[in-house]
């Protein structure tokens, strides 16, 4: 196990245009222009960001079987601070230093208040300096998202090329190419080409 010392940068930034952080066949994460951002660093290198602003998460937690489709898509507004590791400005992000007005739009009178909130997300994810190295880098194509849910817990989305794992309250969804697994409060479904198992509760 390699523990990385993750820390937040001191500068609050903002997106200068809408950014697609993740897009593949089953998931989409994007943030609007003007979203606040602070870099997450390790050994002086940018490793990710904590964003806050207007954004959305779309996830097709649907399993296709010969009997029909099971599950339904998830569509969520991202208005609370969330963490993404593996996405850096080098990946194509357009960022500028946030002005006072940008912070005020997000409800902050002081940049320190935003940094405190962003720090609490990072701490809850694993604690600054205690996070296991997830192999996330802009070159590796691995992304880890941590979204705050209504119950104050973190929903996790891990993406590694064609593989995707989503773990939220009551829902686990795993996709690897055409193999999918869904566990929701109503269903358990496993599917791969020509084979599937479904269980409705």
């Amino acid at each position: 196990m390699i523990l990385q010392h993750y820390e937040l940068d001191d500068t609050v930034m903002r997106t200068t245009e809408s950014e697609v952080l993740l897009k593949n066949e089953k998931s989409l994460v994007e943030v609007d222009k003007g979203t606040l951002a602070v870099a997450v660093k390790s050994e002086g290198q940018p490793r990710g960001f904590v964003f806050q602003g207007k954004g959305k998460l779309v996830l097709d937690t649907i399993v296709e079987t010969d009997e029909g489709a099971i599950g339904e898509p998830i569509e969520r507004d991202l208005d609370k601070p969330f963490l993404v590791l593996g996405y850096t400005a080098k990946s194509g992000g357009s960022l500028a230093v946030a002005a006072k007005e940008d912070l005020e739009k997000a409800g902050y009178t002081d940049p320190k208040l935003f940094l405190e909130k962003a720090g609490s997300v990072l701490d809850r994810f694993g604690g600054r300096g205690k996070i296991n190295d997830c192999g996330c880098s802009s070159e590796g194509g691995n992304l880890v998202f941590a979204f705050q849910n209504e119950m104050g817990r973190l929903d996790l989305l891990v993406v590694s090329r064609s593989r995707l794992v989503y773990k939220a309250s009551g829902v686990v969804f795993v996709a690897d190419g055409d193999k999918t697994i869904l566990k929701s409060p109503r269903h358990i479904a496993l599917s791969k080409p020509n084979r599937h198992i479904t269980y409705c509760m």
Partner: protein
Amino acid sequence: MSDELKDEMKKLKEQITAMKDQLKQMVDEQRPKGRGIYIDIPSPVRDYVEDAMQGVAEGVHGELERSIFIGPRGCRIMRHGPPEMEEPEEKVSFDKVAAVMSALGHEHRLKILSELMSGGKYVNELQEKLSEITTSTLSSHLNVLEEAGLVVQEKVRGRYLVTIPGRTAYKMARRVTRFLEMRDQE
């Protein structure tokens, strides 16, 4: 022990051995040829088994009479599942039943379901297959099917997929129609 008593015991042993051999021979004569264990079932048990077997045979005969439907296009075997418990009336939400039936109750929507039975499709693919339906009408029909829970749309790619209830409802509608057609042809 006296010699007389010893002789007496020897004779008795010989008699027992002879009786054993005789009994074995009798059993061997009655045993059917071939391998296996032979059990002599008493006649009351045999009668009971025969009666039971006759009951089973009559049951199978009756079931076959109910299951085989001979129509103008030949013989059709209809499978009967286990007897279903009748659902209590109060548990049936007729509003929901009516909504599903209403969603099914349009030729275009049935055609859409039929197309989706072979796999998920984008709107333009459906449009291509169902050229007699205009784009706006197709979109409206898809909304009706989605609201009834018969189809689901992927939000990222946008494909439409038929759900398990959708597939079941479509098959049920077809089965009922086929049954009525066969009855009319009688």
